[in-house]
């Protein structure tokens, strides 16, 4: 089973846990209906879309309302630190949480105490906390964009906001940034660096790039990085090899752009319905094209 952990921009949402489904363009869990906005709802929705298509795993969410003051995040951190021994997951994806090194470490210790260690994926605020705490190498996969990759490569930066100028946020530098992050133990074994070209790295070295198909507007749409991470989590939970899952997730997310044909004004919720067909296109391109006429 896949666990998705993060926040929702609704301060009235209490800590909510349960299996997630998609219905009428919204995310449903534990009797709560959540709009698919950028951030963790988009990630969870993408993961559910893949899980439903593959019929091999379920998506269990840990969500709480937080608009940036950190109170909701702390409630979720504490719940995880105290209650994780009661759960068992194949993959855990940590996402939008207020970066907090102390709480991050408590949660990681709880994860590492589990009898069966899940595959660990981190993105967004939890990835920032993982890097800042010096624990990046305890994870399996990070999914930064180019600005976040520069942050991982700057051993002194506690947040992307402080990345030093000489660490250029330039796609051409990705191999160098990856090597630098890995040398300082600020990267996990695998990285998916999201950008105009997606770079996939293993053990400090770029081992694959995904450039096609191109739909430029995807870069401007909030949540398209989240959907990639959600697709990746669901693929890993379905039993796919992590490196293969990284490639497939990057390619699928690009096909989402190709099939949905968004503009820079498109919202991420409009992209979720294209995910099953995009995955089909990647996994079985001949059949997908025949079905599409």
């Amino acid at each position, binding site marked *: 089973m896949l666990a998705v952990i993060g*926040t929702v*921009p609704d301060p009235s949402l209490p800590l909510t846990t349960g299996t997630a489904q998609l219905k009428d363009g919204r995310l449903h869990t534990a009797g709560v209906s959540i709009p698919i*906005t*950028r*951030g*963790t*709802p988009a990630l969870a929705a993408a993961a559910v879309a893949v899980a439903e298509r593959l019929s091999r795993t379920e998506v269990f969410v840990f969500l709480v309302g937080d*608009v*940036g*003051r*950190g109170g*909701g995040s702390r409630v979720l951190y504490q719940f995880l630190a105290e209650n994780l021994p009661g759960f068992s997951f194949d993959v855990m994806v940590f996402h*939008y*949480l*207020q*970066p*907090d*090194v*102390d709480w991050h*470490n408590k949660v*990681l*210790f709880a994860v*590492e105490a589990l009898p069966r260690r899940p595959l660990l994926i981190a993105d*967004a*605020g*939890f*990835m*920032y906390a993982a890097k*800042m*705490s*010096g*624990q990046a*190498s*305890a994870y399996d996969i990070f999914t930064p*964009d180019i*600005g*976040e990759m520069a*942050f991982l490569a700057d*051993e*002194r930066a*506690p*947040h*992307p*906001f*402080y*990345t030093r*100028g000489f660490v250029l*946020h330039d796609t051409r530098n990705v191999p160098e940034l990856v090597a630098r992050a890995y040398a300082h*133990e600020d990267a996990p074994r695998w990285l998916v660096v999201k950008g105009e070209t997606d770079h996939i790295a293993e053990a400090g070295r770029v081992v694959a790039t995904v450039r096609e198909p191109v739909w430029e*507007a995807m*870069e*401007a*749409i*909030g949540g*398209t990085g989240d959907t990639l991470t959600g697709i990746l989590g669901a693929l890993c939970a379905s039993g796919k090899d992590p490196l293969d899952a990284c490639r497939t997730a990057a390619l699928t997310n690009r096909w989402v752009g190709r099939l949905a044909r968004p*503009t*820079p*004004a*498109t*919202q991420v919720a409009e992209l979720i319905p294209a995910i099953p067909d995009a995955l089909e296109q990647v996994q079985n391109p001949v059949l997908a094209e025949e079905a599409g006429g």
Partner: protein
Amino acid sequence: MSSMLRFLKKLAPRKDAAPSPAPDRGILVFENTSDVIQAEKRLKAHGFPIAVKGPPPEIQKGCDLVIEFPLMEKLSIERHLEAAGLHPLAVVPVTAPLLEPVSLFYAKDFGSYLMVRAANMKITVNKESLRIVNISGGGCPDVPYLADRLVGKTLNEAPQPKEIGHTLCGYALQLAYEELCRRCLP
């Protein structure tokens, strides 16, 4: 146990730590970034030569900003903050160079749309209507909230990210927003 070892290793001082300059400046440390943003606004409005910086490593928690100020102005600044109901957690001298916020911007023209990125935050506007059509990037929980509040509004009617944001990502979005205004507004 492996996590603990990695953690302790990272806590060890770095060999390339910079030497300490004379402490003629101090930092104001606040409970959260919202208070930093409010204090910055108030102190700048009163003409104090302050700057928002990153905290020194020993007090970094995760999503932090501090205000650097001339120590000579300490009492006056504290009075202004007190009057505004802002209470720093600590006021301490600066003993090492502080982290500078990002100052590089990246812009991408999509024809009818213009996107500007600062650090990890991107904001996109329709060039004709000046309507904000998307906000992306970032990792702190106020990013989706800021997007909900700003997307669909024009640059003139949208609240500034610094007015309703609470984190460094919110602050980075403010910088991207200001750069976008500089490029798009007369």
